[in-house]
């Protein structure tokens, strides 16, 4: 068995898949976004409760899909909770893959990056009646630019 592939199903990742952090919904979401990867059917929704100053008070995810897509979403919301929106904008795809840990083939990197892409859109997607147009109130900045090969819903 190949060591690099085996890493995908290591304890840490299985823990996040089977006992995820904050799978569910924010009580008072200010920002939210969802997307899917139509090629494999993975779905992820992320909800954020962002304070007026830009701090992410609470982050939740929900979704359906393979171990990688769902474990990655769990890791991501845990990682960004309590951080500023500016931190999320700076958080690159490369850092997301590093956060996940296991080495992934290009095909399965898409599974891992789905939640990252959803998050990058979520901070620009206020819930009706929720916070400012962008989560940090600073207008449409650079977050979208950082994405590579983003898969849009048809």
């Amino acid at each position, binding site marked *: *068995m*190949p060591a690099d*592939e*085996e890493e*995908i*199903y290591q304890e840490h990742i*299985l823990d996040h*898949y*089977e*006992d995820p952090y904050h799978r569910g919904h924010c009580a008072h979401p200010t920002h939210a976004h969802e997307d899917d990867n*139509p*090629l*494999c*059917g993975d779905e992820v929704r992320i909800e954020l409760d962002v304070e007026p100053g830009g701090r992410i008070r609470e982050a939740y995810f929900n979704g*359906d*899909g*393979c*171990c*990688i897509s769902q474990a990655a979403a769990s890791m991501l919301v845990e990682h960004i909770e309590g951080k500023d929106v500016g931190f999320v904008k700076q958080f690159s795809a490369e850092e997301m893959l590093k956060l996940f840990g296991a080495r992934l083939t290009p095909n*399965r990197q898409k*599974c891992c990056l789905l939640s990252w892409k959803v998050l990058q859109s979520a901070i620009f997607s206020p819930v009706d009646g929720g916070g400012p147009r962008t989560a940090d109130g600073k207008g449409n900045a650079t977050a979208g630019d950082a994405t590579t090969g983003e898969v849009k819903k048809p």
Partner: protein
Amino acid sequence: MNALATLPLDPQTLRADFPILATTIHDNVPLVYLDNAATTQRPRQVIQTIVDTYERRYANVHRGIHWLSDQSTDLFEEAREGVRAFINAPAREEVIFTHGTTESINLVARSWGDANVRAGDEIVLTVMEHHSNLVPWQQLAARTGCTLRHIPITDDGELILDEFDKLLSPRTRLVALASVSNVLGTINPVEEIVRRAHSAGALVLVDAAQSAAHMPTDVQRWNADFVAFSGHKMLAPSGVGVLWGRRELLDAMPPFLGGGSMIRRVKVDSFEPADLPAKFEAGTPPIVPAIGLGAAIDYINAVGLANIHAYEDVLTRRAHTVLAEVGGVRIVGPALEKKAGIVSFTVEGVHAHDVAQLLDRQGIAVRAGHHCTMPLHKRLGITATARASFYFYNTLDEINLLGRALADAKHVFRRR
């Protein structure tokens, strides 16, 4: 050895012809190739034909007044005759070389469709079609304003013919369906569909991509109007496919792609199309892939399609047994006697991609996802399946290994 003696063919002898099947991966795990519905592997005989052609008999076809071009043209036209005999077509001119099933279907949708289909007309498809037999018709509908109808399926993945009858009307221009579903493995009743469609005055296109290498194709017995299939799913190189059509239909259709070869004469502002089959073979055709397809057909004929079909049935039966023993496995598709060597399934608590990834660890190649049939998966109420698909070089031992590897995969996920 008794069991082997009763098999319709000897897979071990045949495997020796397929160099790639001796591959080991992931630090010495033998490759178990169960993704034959996506593409088959090639035997030495086909590979050697390709090498021989390039090394000794390659030039452009139908062009040169020189020896090498004659050599190449002879091989290319021999391959066309091989295809004609393989599908029992009445005439060689009706066999069009394309670049694959997808191009074959697009050719019909563009050429026949644009010339014959009007707003208000209807095209009847099935819910189980591959995207390649859906999207070209959606594009035709967008161009012409025709309407698409879909024959529904039972929960077991069989076409509901009573519903088909209700869809047929004087507005129906064409029925397009797969002979075998690439996910369900369902063997569709092509002859019966053709009979009913013709009674309603509609033509029938058969997507034979999943059946051509696995069971006999007889376009006259089917009585179909168009039949499309690909070389790469039947031991031949990728990049070559076939469209067979009735001569009177092909003769009446405008050319599809324009360019060299497809013309009789060109003036600065007009052209006269060439006769069949050149009319639909614009540009330099897939010369060597087509010659490789000829060699692949020779190989398949030597093994025998009846033997192949019977042996795949043995493998598929074993697969159903083995998967049932794993527990928590749901196989989609009809009863064994109605299906080909394609087994798509879900595993309780394990996403299809994780199934494929975990099987890959044990050297087993299966496909996971929607297999280019998103509407079918929606109908089945699942987002993705894992698919094991067989060919004559697979063995019962490999099927047993699939079962053991699936049981292991389930154990990776602990609490579900």
